[in-house]
């Protein structure tokens, strides 16, 4: 356990050195939901049915936060490391490669959330009617927080699973591009899932992406009944379990057939 803490500490000082970079990345990542926000907000202003502007606003502003908390990039680096043969350096270390990437993930997120959280806190405090009313209910916030954390774990692990494909596929990066494309549409970023035709919504229920963004947001906006909340949290847990199993299996299998590329 203290090994993990030490890695966390190391990653912390590593990341602090490159402070400008982190700020940039945070802003860049927030742009997709911001642009989607302006589209759907404009739509909601002129649309009679559908969702009121305030709900759209709440959805997307919190989407920025959920994304900031849940995005995972370790898989990209891990896939690259597998392709280039660099994972051998991890295999001789006492700490698993996943924990190292997880530590990096956590420290960067903590760093880049400091300012946005302060801003959010200020808005919540100074403008109590800015957001959709359910946001101000402590129970809702609690479930939202739990769901978001589960979403973060899920996306991180899922990201790692697809990285495993690097053991078998040279074109793994292309596959990962498909994955991020699917993420943007199936998570509810480009289009809030409720706007999609029913067959699409049903389809996306079977993919993990919905549970990495839409689910926590739906909880936050009070769109789920108490039973449904527990159900969705349960599905998140199931997906986490599935992905963790997948990683364990694929990692072992992958290492067996792994021929270190390069020399």
């Amino acid at each position, binding site marked *: 356990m203290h090994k993990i803490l030490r890695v966390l500490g190391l990653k912390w000082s590593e990341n602090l*050195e*490159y402070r*400008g*970079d*982190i700020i*940039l*990345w945070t*802003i*860049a*990542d927030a*742009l*997709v939901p911001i*642009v989607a926000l*302006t*589209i*759907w907000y*404009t*739509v909601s202003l*002129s*649309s009679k*049915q*559908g969702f009121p502007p305030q709900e759209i606003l709440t959805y997307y502003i919190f989407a920025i936060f959920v994304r900031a908390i849940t995005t995972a990039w370790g898989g990209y680096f891990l896939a690259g490391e597998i392709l280039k043969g660099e994972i051998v350096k991890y295999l001789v270390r006492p700490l698993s490669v996943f924990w190292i990437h997880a530590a990096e993930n956590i420290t960067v997120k903590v760093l880049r959330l400091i300012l946005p959280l302060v801003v959010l806190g200020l808005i919540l405090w100074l403008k109590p009617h800015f957001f959709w009313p359910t946001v101000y209910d402590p129970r809702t916030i609690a479930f939202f927080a739990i769901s978001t954390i589960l979403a973060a774990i899920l996306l991180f692990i899922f990201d790692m699973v697809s990285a495993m494909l690097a053991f078998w596929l040279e*074109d793994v990066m*292309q596959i990962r*591009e*498909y994955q991020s*494309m699917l993420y*943007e*549409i199936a998570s509810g970023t*480009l*289009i809030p899932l409720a*706007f*999609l*035709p029913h067959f699409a919504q049903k389809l996306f229920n079977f993919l993990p992406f919905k549970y990495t963004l839409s689910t926590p947001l739906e909880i936050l906006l009070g769109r789920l009944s108490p039973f449904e909340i527990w159900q969705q949290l349960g599905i998140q847990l199931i997906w986490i379990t599935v992905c963790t199993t997948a990683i364990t299996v694929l990692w072992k299998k992958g290492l067996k057939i792994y021929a270190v590329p390069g020399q």
Partner: protein
Amino acid sequence: MPFLDNSLHLARVWLAIVRVSIIREMEFRANFILGLVRQIAWLGIFILMIKTVFANTTSLAGWGQNEVLIILSLSRIIEGFLNTVFSRNVAEVPQMIQAGTFDFILTKPMPAQLYASFRRFKVDSLANVVAGIVLLIYALTQLPTLPSISSLLIFMLVSLLGIAVFYSLLIIVVSLAFLLERFEGFYAFTNMFSEPLTVPFDIFPRGPRLILTYLLPLAFVVFVPAQALTHRLQGWQVIVSIVITSIFLLLAHLAWRSGIRRYSSASS
């Protein structure tokens, strides 16, 4: 005539690069096809998004569905072109600096900014251009009136200006790489700049719209050409376009030069 000689030299090198890039791409047929399908899929997703929007409203800040499709298709064409010719090359500069291979760019007998920007021709991004053209033709034919010849000429002019503006923005931002020590976020910037390009800028509130027109002039890359094609562009806007492009090209040159100067004094 050194200017002419140098320009011919650069053109010859660039053509050689294009030829070699196409050869390279043919080696990776599977990857190329996967990329092709993916780019078409993205187009499909955006079309789905537009259709969903217009299932809920009849006009998006004054733009009808076909007109929004025009914006989308232009964004694919222009972004595809940018990615093929230089965006991705510029995006690689920060990691080249980190890896120490940027020095190879500086030792070549040509302007470093040009070589760094155009040294690869990324054929796989061309699919966006083709898909965009198909969509554009479709969307144009759905308009009540086709654009006139003069509109088309103005469209081509502002498109070129828009490309020059985007190029300048990339160079300005990448010059930051010489200042910061690590700049992995650059890829995020290219995505960031591309993100608002797919939508009509009229949906942005006044503040952001002004910023995106005069401070970070992304409006000129896709939106203004789209305005040209849909009878929305006025004469004075073309003049503004020319002025802004010139300013940003100059800023880019200065930013790069200052960046290189820093690199040449600070890198050990």
